[in-house]
């Protein structure tokens, strides 16, 4: 078993490698941003401005975020399989280190997506001003939970035949608790209510998914 120091070095190496190879083509980021903006415009075009419908605003925000992330988060593993580089990567790092590196990369990726989507969403939909502390807390914890779950499912799906097509269908059952808690929390903060329960739920879910991932990644990549 590798020591903690060498594991964290390996995680960091995987993360920088992901960032570098993404930056070379920017294929994943461009596709995801394009997809996100298109979804956002479709939603906005379909429903117009909703200044006082906080129930719809919170649901649509997370639908847009969910679809944008589903369209892009399996990419990190699928790219390794398609490029036949997974075996090489596994020679130099443990499955857990690879997965954690890719998880951090996916988290960065989500952060970038949200920096573009969320302000644009608030602007286009004309919603009331959010309570920033709670709103950003929900977004942050929701993203961590989303990234933890989709990275795990993405690692699994990359080895199957369906890949892209399967990813959304297989992820959604696992993402449903995140989605439900995030939507109800976002709505509550717009209505001035407390969101402590939702935040705790998202944090607990993210922790449970991370723990499950740490236990299961070794099983995913052995043969």
């Amino acid at each position: 078993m590798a020591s903690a120091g060498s594991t964290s070095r390996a995680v960091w190496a995987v993360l920088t490698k992901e960032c570098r190879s993404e930056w070379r083509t920017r294929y994943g980021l461009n596709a995801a941003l394009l997809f996100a903006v298109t979804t956002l415009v479709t939603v906005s075009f379909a429903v117009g401005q909703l200044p006082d419908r906080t129930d719809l605003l919170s649901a649509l925000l997370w639908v847009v975020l969910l679809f944008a992330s589903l369209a892009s988060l399996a990419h990190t593993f699928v790219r390794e399989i398609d490029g036949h580089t997974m075996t090489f990567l596994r020679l130099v790092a443990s499955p857990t280190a690879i997965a954690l590196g890719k998880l951090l990369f996916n988290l960065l990726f989500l952060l970038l997506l949200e920096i573009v989507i969320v302000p644009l969403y608030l602007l286009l939909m004309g919603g009331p001003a959010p309570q920033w502390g709670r709103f950003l807390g929900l977004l942050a914890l929701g993203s961590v939970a989303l990234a933890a779950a989709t990275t795990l499912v993405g690692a699994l799906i990359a080895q199957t035949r369906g890949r892209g097509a399967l990813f959304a269908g297989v992820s959604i059952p696992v993402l449903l608790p995140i989605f439900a808690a995030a939507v109800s929390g976002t709505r509550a903060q717009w209505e001035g209510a407390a969101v402590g329960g939702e935040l705790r739920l998202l944090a607990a879910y993210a922790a449970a998914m991370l723990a499950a991932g740490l236990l299961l990644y070794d099983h995913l990549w052995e043969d």
Partner: protein
Amino acid sequence: MVWRILLFAWISVAMVLGFTWAPVVPFLEETTRVIYFHVPAAWVTVVALAWSMVHSILYLRRRDLKHDDQAAAAAELGVMFCLLATISGSLWAKAQWGSYWNWDPRETTIFFLLLVYGAYLAIRGAVEEPAKRARLSAVYSAVAFVAVPFLMFVVPRIHATLHPSPILPAGGESSGGMDPRIRVVFWAMVAGFTALFFWMLSLRIRLGRLERESAA
């Protein structure tokens, strides 16, 4: 053979008693009788899911394809019973609540179970090699099992349930409670459905083993 005939007779008698001997609950009226089919089907769904997940984890620990056969067969039967529970529940909801589907927490959780099973079977369909298929689907099974308790916890926070389960088993409710005759038929049907599930499971496993041996 004897067991099969006994099981057939057992379920038939319970069914007839459910329609003739057992009384109805006030408010629910004739729709009371759905509990002899709907609740046992839902119960078997949960048993099947738990069975499938336990064998998935056993597979990851022991790497024996026997456990994978068990997990896959239980999941397939689980889908069938889950569909039966969903359809009977939806029909009952139309009669009692006035709409086939309105995202009551029970409807949400059973829909979630259908999604999990569906995804599990989709993964199985997308991998050719038996050992790899067993490994990947077992991992998914474990991941989905993490999501289940959270969903049970999240959904009731968002919607209140109208599902009658809190009334029925209590027995001493002012609304009439559960008549002992209903209880007898109900538990007979639960036992019958459970036995039916394990019999079908053993058939499916034997079939799976034969398929694998003839392919090899």
